[in-house]
């Protein structure tokens, strides 16, 4: 079991700033306590006594102290800013690093919205709390103790009154924090939900608008928005007891001190001057407590956020390298041994059952089957995007789970059905395949993928900017760019998951020809809807209901497999090629 990661471990290089801040704060507080004493003396011994030289003496002293306090305060502020924003930067970085390791099951567990909230809103909350802790939460207790110490020096018995208040205050605060915490936990979960609603709306805005469902969406959003409002209001209302509670405690002390103090004064055990100072120290205590209550509010809020961050930091990917992973993929052979798979990891609900396959390195495998027959699921097991629930998948004679994941995926290029391009230029997108690729290599890959032609028609050619999700190139162009990107990896295994569906037959044929001639040693898996795309494959798998219904060459299957023949006939009736 890996050691649990804590938030504190993310401070890292900002340890210095984190430690310096409270040190400077302590210096600042020292002056903050001394300066009022000096100004008091200035008033009493200088002004009230009409002594100009005293005024100057204390005046200069105060100015010097004030300048020192200013310097220390500014330094503590500066370091606090660096420590807290740096801390939050590290938190974000570490979280993102962990997210990179996530399997899709992990991502589904948190949802995109949940991950985003944790990396932004939650971190901001923790950052604020952290800054308050190293500054104000250091400052206030010191002020408090100093002030209390001073009351103690005046009259220890009176000072003891504060000890009675502490348990009252502690219990009160505990109750407040305990009851607010679960509400905040709920609030941030709703933030995830809000993020998801907005994201879905943004992604599906064309659907929303074409079905004229704006009002429906508004209602949906209004519901989340309202729930956040309700929970947050409730939580903050509980927290609003904080300040009055502290005020009441301090005021209670004040009254008690007044009463007892008056008796002491009458009894001659205390002077009126001492009582006055006592009052001003109590005011100091009150001020510190009020500031602390503000910190406390932020801490309660941040606690829920911190827990959510830790949860993400400690989430272990369910796809991990085994001990001593194999770093090299020997060849492009692929073997499936009685493989079963279920997204829910439930053997009862397998969507892939009892698959046995042996594919030699360099072969071309066509995969055909109806909608929802688990074609995509089957090929996703090869680069280990998911782990088989049953049986095992071998690449180059080694179980995929024994490979170093990166080494395996480096050798298995997959062009996904849902192609994604990222915002950036065409070149940048292509270099995903191989970041060291020269311009010549890029052009070569694009020629093979039949993408060079249309790229050259763009005014900026290979430097054309692609919008988020590739919304400014058409479906077929996107597919060809994605194929080129995959080719640049020079993989041992290439998987095309229905990746030429938007490409016309002639181009499709040219791409396949390029595959045959240029990368003959690469094992190729081609999922397709049209038979023409796969009929010259070495082996063709016909999928049906999560099983391999038949396997063989085009000719063999025409003779033996009813499903295959039916598809073939449906696509060829009328003669000639059916698709373009």
């Amino acid at each position, binding site marked *: 079991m890996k050691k649990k990661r804590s938030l504190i471990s993310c401070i890292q290089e900002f340890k210095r700033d984190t430690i310096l801040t409270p040190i400077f704060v302590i210096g600042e507080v020292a002056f903050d306590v001394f300066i009022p004493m000096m100004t008091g003396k200035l008033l009493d011994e200088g002004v009230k006594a*009409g002594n100009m030289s005293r005024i100057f003496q204390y005046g200069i002293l105060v100015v010097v102290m004030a300048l020192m306090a200013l310097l220390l305060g500014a330094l503590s*502020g500066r370091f606090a800013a660096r420590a807290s*924003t740096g801390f939050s930067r590290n938190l974000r970085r570490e979280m993102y690093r962990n997210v*990179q390791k996530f399997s899709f099951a992990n991502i589904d567990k948190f949802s995109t919205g949940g991950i985003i909230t944790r*990396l932004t809103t939650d971190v901001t909350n923790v950052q604020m709390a952290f800054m308050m802790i190293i500054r104000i939460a250091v400052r206030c207790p010191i002020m408090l103790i100093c002030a209390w110490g001073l009351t103690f020096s005046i009259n220890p018995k009176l000072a003891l009154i504060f000890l009675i208040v502490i348990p009252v205050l502690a219990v009160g605060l505990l109750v407040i924090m305990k009851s607010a915490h679960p509400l905040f936990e709920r609030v941030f979960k709703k933030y995830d939900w809000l993020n998801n609603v907005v994201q879905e709306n943004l992604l599906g805005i064309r659907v929303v608008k074409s079905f004229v469902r704006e009002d429906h969406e508004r209602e949906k959003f209004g519901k989340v928005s309202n729930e956040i409002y309700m929970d947050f209001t409730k939580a903050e209302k509980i927290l609003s007891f904080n300040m009055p509670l502290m005020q009441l405690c301090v005021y209670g002390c004040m009254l008690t001190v007044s009463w007892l103090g*008056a008796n002491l*004064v009458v009894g001659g055990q205390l002077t009126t001057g001492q009582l006055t100072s006592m009052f001003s120290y109590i005011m100091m205590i009150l001020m510190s407590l009020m500031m602390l209550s503000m910190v406390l509010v932020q801490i309660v809020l941040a606690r829920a956020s911190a827990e959510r961050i830790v949860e993400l930091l400690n989430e272990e990917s369910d796809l991990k390298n085994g001990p001593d992973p194999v770093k090299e993929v020997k060849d492009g052979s692929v073997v499936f041994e009685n493989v079963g798979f279920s997204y829910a990891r439930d053997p009862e609900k397998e969507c892939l059952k009892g698959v046995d396959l042996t594919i030699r390195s360099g072969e071309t495998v066509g995969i055909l089957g109806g*909608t929802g027959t688990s074609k995509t699921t089957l090929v996703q097991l090869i680069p280990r995007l998911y782990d088989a629930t049953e049986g095992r998948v071998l690449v180059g004679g080694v179980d995929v789970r024994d490979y170093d994941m990166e080494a395996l995926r480096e050798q298995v290029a997959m062009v996904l059905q849902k192609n994604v391009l990222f915002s950036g230029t065409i070149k940048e997108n292509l270099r995903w395949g191989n970041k060291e690729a020269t311009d010549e290599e890029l052009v070569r890959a694009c020629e093979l993928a039949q993408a060079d032609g249309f790229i050259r028609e763009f005014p900026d050619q290979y430097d054309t900017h692609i919008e988020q999700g590739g919304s400014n190139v058409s479906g077929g162009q996107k597919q060809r760019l994605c194929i080129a990107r995959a080719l640049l990896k020079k993989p041992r295994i290439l998987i095309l998951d229905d990746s030429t569906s938007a490409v016309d037959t002639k181009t499709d044929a040219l791409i396949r020809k390029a595959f045959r001639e240029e990368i003959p040693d690469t094992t190729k898996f081609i999922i397709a809807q049209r038979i023409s795309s796969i009929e010259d494959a070495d082996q063709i798998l016909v999928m049906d209901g999560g099983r391999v219904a038949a396997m063989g060459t085009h000719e063999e299957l025409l003779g033996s497999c009813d499903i295959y023949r039916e598809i073939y006939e449906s696509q060829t009736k009328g003669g000639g090629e059916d698709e373009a």
Partner: protein
Amino acid sequence: MKPDHARPSVKKSQTIRRLLRYVGRGYAVKFVLVLICIMVSAIASVSAALFLGSLIDDYITPLLAMDNPVFDGLIHALILMGCLYLTGALCALAYNRLMVTISQGVQKKIRDDLFSHMQSLPIKYFDTHAHGDIMSIYTNDVDTLRQMLSQSIPQVINSMMMIVVALIGMLTTDLLLTGVVILCVAAMLGVTRFLAGRSGRHFVRQQVKLGDLNGYIEEMINGQKVVKVFCHEEEAQEGFDAVNDALFESADKANKYANILMPILINIGNIQYVIIAMAGGALALSGIGSGITLGVIATFLQLSKSLSNPISQISQQLNSVVMALAGAQRIFDLMDEPAEEDHGTVTLVNVAFDQDDKLYETKEHTNLWAWKVPQEDGSYKYTKLAGDVRFDHVDFAYEEGKTILHDISLFAKPGQKLAFVGATGAGKTTITNLINRFYDIADGKIHYDGISINDIKKTDLRRSLGIVLQDTNLFTGTVRENIRYGNLDATDEEVEAAAVLANADDFIRRLPQGYDTMLTGNGANLSQGQRQLIAIARAAVADPPVMILDEATSSIDTRTEAIVQRGMDSLMCGRTVFVIAHRLSTVRNSDAIMVLDHGRIVERGDHEDLIAQHGVYYQLYTGAFELE
């Protein structure tokens, strides 16, 4: 950066005014109550403090003189003070709680208004803005308002009152010394202005960078599969680190300037104290300043403390205020995005025939629709919704100078099935974007049932069109809810009938909870083809007079497609259908096929005509030619 950033101060005051308008709207009474409570609690604490001062002189000292001290007076005084304290605390509780409601209420209202406005923005906005950045406004930017509204505003108001009380006290004590104090306050304001300006600029950048970060995460997680397949984790991390570092840098600076303000102000206060003491002392002792006595200076020094304390308290709230203004600016920028323009006046209504076979409007669901066209004399003309679509020499460019469509003319009669084929990027999807007015073109170019589509209200126009798009988007919810999205009034039977029609019923029933299976993450665990089938069912349940199928069956195998097509054909019998596809099997049985190339119609006719022509379509069909 927008040009109006050049005048930030104007913008800032506008931002504040707009925020206040939100508080005023709906919370005016509560806000006045808050003000009263703050005032009462301030008065209570001020008078309690004053009372405390007199406690010793007026109550305790006299006791000393008595032989047999009577504590009654003191007890009364303490009880009175207790009452003051209690009032103060209760008022504090009251205004804090009220402020929570106001602050959260305003945030909710702003969120709702943001979303509501966003729904009315043109498609172009969504195509050109990073989604994550927009999402950040709803959470991170709205969040900045929370602290400002619930903590800073009460604190600032409270402190302001203290300042006013102190200033009045000063003015009535001595004008000359007040002048000195005002000079110091001016210095404090100068420093505040400078630092707040600095810090504000960086807070604005911080919020922008936070939006960038949000955008980056959103885009990368959406493409996580690609990241994995290409082992691009490290590069993704590098990209993230770059944005993250930029955020760190601006956040660090913003907080730094905000943090050093408080120590500066507190100590200017201390120095001011010394200056007053020295100046006052010198004046009093030299006898130049007439009327300044040592007693006056002593009082004045106390007052100057009660002036600089609240000022430094305000300064503590500064960073949350400045940050909130930065957030609010981004919020209002989104709210100021111009909404989709719609000057359409023609609406879609349910109609029925009266005895004379004339159309009349009715509220009942008659399944018969008509366009309600306002006439110049104020009356209405009803035109039956038929689905007749005409393009008249349409040219179109998304960006000026880059014409996508050239001189497109076409007509679709009700009941016809029209197909567009052509290479990717030939402008097929653009045509559908124009029919449902995702993008607008010059008036009078496209007619729908004889009415220029620019005259039809957008919502009514879109309601009459069913569209299945290239990219399927499903929403979080059950399968049933997703299909019902097409027609919110559809019964369960209608939903299931639509699914049967789309050939989706079969696989839906095999899902763990059938129609009640929850879909999340855009239907993550369904295959691409299955998602398309659900999208088709969704359009079918809407039962529209005109249907646009844009590559609606591209991920569906050909056998299933044939079944779906038969279903759709029977549903759309007598209605207009536009089909866009690569697969010629999808378009073969259309009444008219338009072959598009580089935004021009190069051939048109039905399948047999086009084959006989031996032109582009023929070559496409025989696989001998590529359209590029």
